[in-house]
């Protein structure tokens, strides 16, 4: 096993945030289904508990029927659009590549386990950017940050921060392909015999791609940064990648051990064990079989990236026509079906903090966890018994926006 592969497998990106396409699709469907279910409940019961009082205008529903919910595909489209918004905001603020990319990845990860119907994407755009700065060791003052984007109320950004942390499972380290690209360039130079200009041009183009395409697709979930980088480089200059791979995977197994007709060519299983263990190790790491597999993977990633190349797609996502035609209807749909309790992050955040403050004042820390585990689940929404509307206890918690002492 290659040492560098083993080390990558230790990362949280691999352990927690890498999936097979099937897995990822399943996750998204589940989030979608769960959101639908819970929003339906809320809408129905909120309608029920509010007796028909004349001029009552419940959230987007004049009748007790449910709105049309977003399908997973539509959700995915919206997520992609908003990811481009994240990048656009990052560009506007002049942040480093790594910060922008981390924010985009945070955004996508958030909407794997949460539905876009539950938490509004508009607010989350800036939240991810804010947290990405922290994760990348860039100190930002919340006031200045808010100002950059013309937002007067900084609290709305802070409101979603903890939520984002939870959704990310507190895995803040995102591995990007930018440095990897420089490494590849060094390795190429060392091979020798390649024109410098060609390498520079390829690097430049690949970098351009990496700042956009992988983030606008699910590449980070299915491929490692090294593979993404090589895919981008391949789009820039296929020949260079072929040379690099050939140079890296140069081990030739001794004769009689591997041949074209052997079952391993199907690519399902690693080569059967051989007597010569040293050669066996080398074959699994830099032999022909693994080389072909790597090439195949890079090819697949290349295909994925090619669907969101910077020149074409930036325009696509920024264009007003596209917006009007594709996205606006979805946004409208979203507005109708969003979770009424959670659409306002700020409210949610304040209420939770208020509840925490009350808790801290009346009991000590231990008691809070001891018997009250299930007791105050509903307390955030102000009920001690069966579910109630949220309107009741809002008035209490508005004095101190940053919450009281813990």
């Amino acid at each position, binding site marked *: 096993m290659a040492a560098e592969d083993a080390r990558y497998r230790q990362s949280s990106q691999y352990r927690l945030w890498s999936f097979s396409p099937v897995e990822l699709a399943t996750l998204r469907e589940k989030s979608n289904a769960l959101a639908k279910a819970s929003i339906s409940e809320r809408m129905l019961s909120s309608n029920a508990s509010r007796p028909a009082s004349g001029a009552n205008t419940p959230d987007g529903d004049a009748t007790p029927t449910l709105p049309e919910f977003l399908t997973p595909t539509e959700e995915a489209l919206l997520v992609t659009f908003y990811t481009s918004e994240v990048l656009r905001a990052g560009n506007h603020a002049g942040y480093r590549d790594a910060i922008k990319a981390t924010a985009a990845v945070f955004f996508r990860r958030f909407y794997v386990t949460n539905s876009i119907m539950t938490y509004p994407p508009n607010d989350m755009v800036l939240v991810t950017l804010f947290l990405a700065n*922290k994760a990348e060791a860039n100190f930002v003052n*919340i006031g200045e940050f808010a100002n950059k984007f013309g937002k007067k109320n900084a609290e709305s950004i802070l409101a979603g921060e*903890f939520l984002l942390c939870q959704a990310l499972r507190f895995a803040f380290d995102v591995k990007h392909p930018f440095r990897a690209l420089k490494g590849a360039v060094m390795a190429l130079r060392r091979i020798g015999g390649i024109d410098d200009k060609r390498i520079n041009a390829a690097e430049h183009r690949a970098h351009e791609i990496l700042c956009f395409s992988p983030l606008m697709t699910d590449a980070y979930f299915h491929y490692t940064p090294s593979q993404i980088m090589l895919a981008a480089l391949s789009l820039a200059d296929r020949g260079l990648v072929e040379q690099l791979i050939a140079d890296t995977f140069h081990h030739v197994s001794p004769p009689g051990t591997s041949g074209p007709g052997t079952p391993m060519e199907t690519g399902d299983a690693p080569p059967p064990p051989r007597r010569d263990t040293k050669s066996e190790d080398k074959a699994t790491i830099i032999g022909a079989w693994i080389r072909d597999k790597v090439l195949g993977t890079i090819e697949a990633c290349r295909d994925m990236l090619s669907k969101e190349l910077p020149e074409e797609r930036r325009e696509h996502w920024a264009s007003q026509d596209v917006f009007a035609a594709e996205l606006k209807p979805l946004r409208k749909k979203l507005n109708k079906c969003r979770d009424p309790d959670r659409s306002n992050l700020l409210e949610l955040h304040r209420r939770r*903090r208020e509840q925490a403050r009350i808790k801290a004042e009346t009991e000590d820390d231990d008691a809070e966890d001891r018997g009250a585990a299930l007791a105050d689940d509903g307390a955030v929404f102000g009920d001690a018994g069966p579910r109630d509307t949220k309107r009741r206890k809002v008035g209490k918690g508005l004095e101190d926006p940053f919450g009281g002492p813990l």
Partner: protein
Amino acid sequence: MNENEKRKYIKGRKLGEGTYANVYLGQLRTDPAVLVAIKKMKVQREQDGIAYDAVRELKFLQELHHPNIVELLSVFNSKDQNLNLVLEYLPLGDLESLIRDTDRVRYGAADIKAWMGMLTRAVWFCHDNFVLHRDIKPNNLLIAADGEVKLADFGLARSFADPGVNMTHMVITRWYRPPELLFGCRSYSGAVDVWSVGLVFAELIIRTPFLPGNSEVDQINRICQAIGTPTEDNWPGVSSLRSYAVPAEVYPVPDKKAWMDRFGGVGAEGVDLLCKTLVLDPNKRITAREMLEHRWWRTDPKPTRKEDLPRSKDDGAKKMGADLGRRPGAVEDENRGSKVARRLDFGAK
């Protein structure tokens, strides 16, 4: 998911209290014999949302897995938006209390070598993963039940910066801070951690902090006196650092004999290694990897096995505030065993 994680652990008594975090003893629900430490952090302290050190701690503990680095088992949050970090339980306190307890704890060169090995390995692992710890001191070196030393507290850590990206120079506790940081440098390397390691090494030997400056100016003075004044001769480019300021008197770098006089307990090889970590110019300072390749590890005495290392006479958890209720006079009984009558042994010479 969060609920699942939370239910995995049962929170027990409080072990310690701090400004920003409380530590509780915990158990695995499925196996109550497995103990953990649950660190409950108040994450939203400042105006700027989630605290930076919480972010850093979480970020690096999730990525770094090594026997000499404290292990993060799980994270979950409680309803009041407090963060609970489930860490491995390290009951034997930290290295600082061991060093300071000169009355009751004795240790020798082999023990120092064992501890230094663990510390250096931890630092090497961080650097190999391109992470700077930036707060190495005996206080942050916790001891596990089997005697293994673990590096903890990644609240000041960060990944290596790309060239041209500035880092803060206000890191590392003053006594363990290297000269380049005291001079305000913004672009540095793992050498800052190596300097701290060197000072921990010195402290292990002389059992008191080697350079306990009470201000940054005082710290620079002490470095000059003990290790030599940084000048353009021994450190090209130093005078261009923005906060470069040294006392008028230029102290020379002490010779080997002076080091041997003070630190000779670990032998000539040990002193050689120590000197290499306390080189003024970070470009010439030894790296963590090179430290592990030094001759000292191969000379006698062999490092003590971790099970046999001296242990704190206090209950480690006591250090964090809990009291097991031990009688104050319990220590004297320790020596009674040695007065057991000797077995007659005709075979022995």
